């Protein structure tokens, strides 16, 4: 029965928990703790699904027909999840790396490495694309790049530019790309009926909120907010291409106005993450005890 419980736990953690957690918008005020909680929930879901078959195997010693059904179901869930994880992990990873390599090769011949002054010191390694649309992004990976357009340099006064650069550097330093890749892979691995788009959307927002905190430290909440506004305005004519429209930018802006989360709540969020992660492991341990 513990095997069935693990299957149920996997479904709840993948399908129900994300929907509930996405509603707790105030958790966004502690983006780091919230990201830990999201990772714990997703990892626990995977662990639960992968433990189902091993847990069912534990009582194969007493052979009864009912138990064969449980074993069959648990094995099917485990193998399905494992297979889908490996497959979408491989597919998404390959596609992302190919797209990044192509993009980096283009940027390296098109964009000039421009020394941009950030605060007191010169910030090296920033590439400037000769284009009027203001945009700023980074290419993650081993050979990372921070890219700005001439339009962005023209639109941003120096304190706002500091905010933007600090934001992008925080993405690179924290390897936020791996976090997003992990949740993208999970998103595509979870079978349709239990999949919840909330997780991926919320994680994307939290990663931005986390990088915004680095931006605030390098400049100020106001400069960060104004940089968001300036770039959003500059890109609006192009947003019809499909980018944007999910309200993340406004949500980030509101977080810049919000007060930080009380430490007690943050501690509670970490405790929740730990407890969730222990759950599937405890069930697996019980099955084999």
């Amino acid at each position, binding site marked *: 029965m513990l095997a069935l419980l693990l299957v149920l736990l996997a479904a709840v953690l993948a399908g129900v928990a994300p929907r509930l957690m996405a509603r707790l918008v105030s958790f966004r005020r502690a983006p780091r703790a919230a990201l830990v909680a999201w990772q714990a929930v997703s990892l626990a879901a995977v662990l639960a699904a992968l433990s189902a078959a091993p847990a069912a195997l534990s009582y194969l010693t007493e052979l009864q027909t009912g138990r064969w059904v449980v074993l069959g179901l648990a094995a099917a869930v485990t193998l399905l999840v494992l297979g889908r994880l490996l497959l979408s992990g491989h597919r998404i990873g390959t596609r992302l790396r190919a797209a990044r390599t192509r993009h980096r090769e*283009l940027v*390296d011949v098109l964009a000039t490495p421009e020394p941009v002054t950030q605060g007191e010191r010169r910030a090296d390694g920033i590439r400037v694309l000769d284009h009027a649309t203001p*945009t700023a992004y980074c290419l993650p990976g081993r050979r990372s790049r921070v890219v700005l357009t001439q339009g962005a340099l023209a639109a941003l006064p120096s304190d706002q530019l500091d905010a933007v650069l600090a934001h992008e550097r925080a993405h690179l330093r924290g390897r936020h790309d791996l976090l997003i890749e992990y949740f993208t892979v999970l998103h595509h691995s979870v079978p349709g009926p239990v999949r919840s788009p909330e997780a991926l959307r919320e994680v994307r927002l939290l990663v931005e909120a986390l990088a915004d905190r680095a931006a605030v430290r390098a400049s100020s909440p106001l400069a960060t*907010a104004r940089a968001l506004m300036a770039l959003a305005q500059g890109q*609006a004519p*192009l947003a019809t291409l499909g980018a944007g429209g999910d309200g993340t930018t406004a949500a980030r802006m509101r977080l810049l106005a919000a007060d930080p989360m009380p430490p007690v709540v943050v501690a509670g969020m970490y405790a929740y993450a730990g407890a969730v992660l222990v759950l599937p492991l405890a069930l697996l341990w019980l099955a084999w005890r």
Partner: protein
Amino acid sequence: MPHTSSAPRLGDLERTLMEQLWDSAAHRPDGASVREVLEALPAERGLAYTTVMTVLDRLSKKGLVTRERDGRAWRYTPAGTRESLTAETMRATLDDASDRRATLLHFLDGATPEELDDLRAALSEVEQRRG
């Protein structure tokens, strides 16, 4: 990100040669040979023929230049004008069709004109509380 000493130099060379090819594309529509590229470069760069050949070969493997045989040598042509390749790069950063959101990490995920009003309201909230 730490750079090895050779990687950025090779990148600089690639950009220099691409710029050379773009600049000469107007009067050399059939592309340029390694010799012609080398001769157009300022002499003080002191590049060897083989270096230019290697870099052009790398660029063609990356699909940034195309090459065509001309007798015993190759003639190299940029795969697109600087403007068209810049447009391709910008498209990759702004349109949502591909895995844009996972490929690159943006400062901003774009905002529709309707969203701008919402943003303005949020900005004035920040201005009041943090200004």
